[in-house]
């Protein structure tokens, strides 16, 4: 285990922000994101509501994916406590926020995960769990997760970088594809992804390298064809996500000399319509230690929603949050490129 070191984590976030800022000096084709918004008459990004309460319940994960913006892995100790989860529940209930979106790490590795899901279900919330699939087979204690998800009306959203082993394993580690297929079969067997079951199983695609995703519709068609014909697997929707230059993926871009060209590609693909509809305008993201952010990416860059106590779930102030200005930096180009990118895939139809 690597001991959590707050100062080190904050310094790392600051370093990444500096690298993101630096790109504007490396290329005349990469203006500041704020300036790009102004160019399209968008003075700032303001919330349009608060429908999604995304909770990062911890950075511990049984995988160490190359693109992971959380830098998650088996050695991470940052895990949300039950007390912080209770503070989340208080806010969700008090302000009647309809959607709870659980992420990590592998959220199922939080020892209070099931308690939290049950509590959200009791409140009648729509619950999304971002499940990495392999967790279902990681240990016997997780084998019944499909039943648990179904009993609590959980929508399962799972990353699968590609429909073959070569590209999936390159991103997520050797053997991950094979285990993911087994996990998908377990979910299908419980009814997940099957028509009329009411149990939603969506997949998330993200590019296995320094390029933007192809059309979500085309990818969904291909994923469905391949997974069905080669493995007998069904699912509901596929979300195509752009890799954002944060954490491990940012380091990959810099170390492989792809950073400037990738940022230029994001800028070239800037879509003002996607910018107006970014997910951060309708969500709040809570970190394992209860701090509030505009999204999970800002969370990793330590860009809190406020500099005062209103940046913690213990002091959840809906009025303030609805009037805030979303914090932006150069990584935001990732959500505004092409058809846009969000935790729910493409933002606009091209």
């Amino acid at each position, binding site marked *: 285990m690597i001991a959590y070191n707050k100062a080190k984590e904050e310094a790392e976030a600051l370093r990444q922000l500096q690298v993101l800022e630096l790109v504007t000096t490396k290329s005349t084709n990469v203006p500041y994101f704020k300036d790009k918004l102004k160019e399209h008459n968008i003075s700032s990004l303001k919330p349009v509501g608060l429908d999604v309460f995304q909770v990062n319940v911890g950075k511990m994960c049984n995988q160490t994916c190359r693109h992971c913006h959380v830098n998650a892995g088996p050695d991470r100790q940052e895990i949300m406590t039950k007390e912080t989860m209770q503070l989340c529940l208080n806010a969700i209930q008090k302000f009647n926020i309809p959607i709870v979106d659980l992420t990590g790490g592998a959220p199922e590795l939080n020892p209070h995960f099931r308690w939290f899901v049950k509590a959200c279900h009791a409140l009648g919330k729509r619950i999304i769990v971002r499940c990495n699939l392999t967790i279902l087979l990681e240990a016997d204690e997780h084998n019944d997760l499909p039943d648990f998800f179904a009993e609590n009306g959980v929508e399962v959203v799972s990353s699968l970088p590609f429909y*073959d082993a070569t590209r999936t394993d390159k991103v997520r580690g050797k053997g991950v594809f094979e285990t993911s297929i087994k996990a998908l079969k377990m979910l299908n067997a419980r009814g997940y992804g099957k028509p009329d079951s009411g149990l939603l199983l969506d997949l998330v695609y993200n590019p296995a*390298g320094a*390029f933007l995703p*192809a059309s979500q519709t085309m990818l969904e068609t291909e994923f469905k064809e391949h997974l069905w014909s080669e493995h007998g697997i069904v699912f509901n929707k596929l979300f195509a996500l752009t890799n954002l230059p944060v954490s491990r993926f940012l380091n990959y871009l810099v170390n492989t000399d792809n950073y400037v060209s990738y940022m230029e590609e994001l800028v070239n693909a800037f879509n003002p319509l996607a910018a107006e509809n970014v997910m951060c305008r309708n969500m709040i993201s809570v970190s394992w230690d209860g701090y509030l952010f505009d999204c999970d990416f800002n969370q990793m860059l330590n860009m809190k929603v406020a500099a005062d106590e209103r940046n913690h779930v213990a002091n959840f102030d809906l009025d303030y949050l609805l009037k805030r200005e979303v914090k932006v930096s150069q990584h935001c180009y990732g959500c505004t490129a092409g058809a846009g990118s969000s935790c729910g895939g493409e933002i606009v139809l091209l």
Partner: protein
Amino acid sequence: MAKDYYKPEDLKKFGTIGNYQKPLADKFFAWYGEVFKEGALTEKEKDLIALAVAHVVQCPYCIDAYTTNCVKNGYSEAQMMEAVHVGAAIKGGAVLAHSVQMMNKNEEISF
């Protein structure tokens, strides 16, 4: 004389060919755009054809561009390499097919 050819950054300057002859460049880019739109073939199929042709005409800019497109569109490494082999086979076959001309000429001028 230029110190080196084929600078990667020149690919981004492709559009500037219109600086010297805009009407023809405009016609070319409009035609190029139409060619790669979905028609009887999908855009994805056209990307793989373009990758093979890029190798045959040995255009490094095109190889970069269409490798990226093919990877983005989900072609596997094996599929991309097979496409290059198709291009190579056609090129190699074309060379060898010309040897018939060589043989004909040889027959014509030899005892």
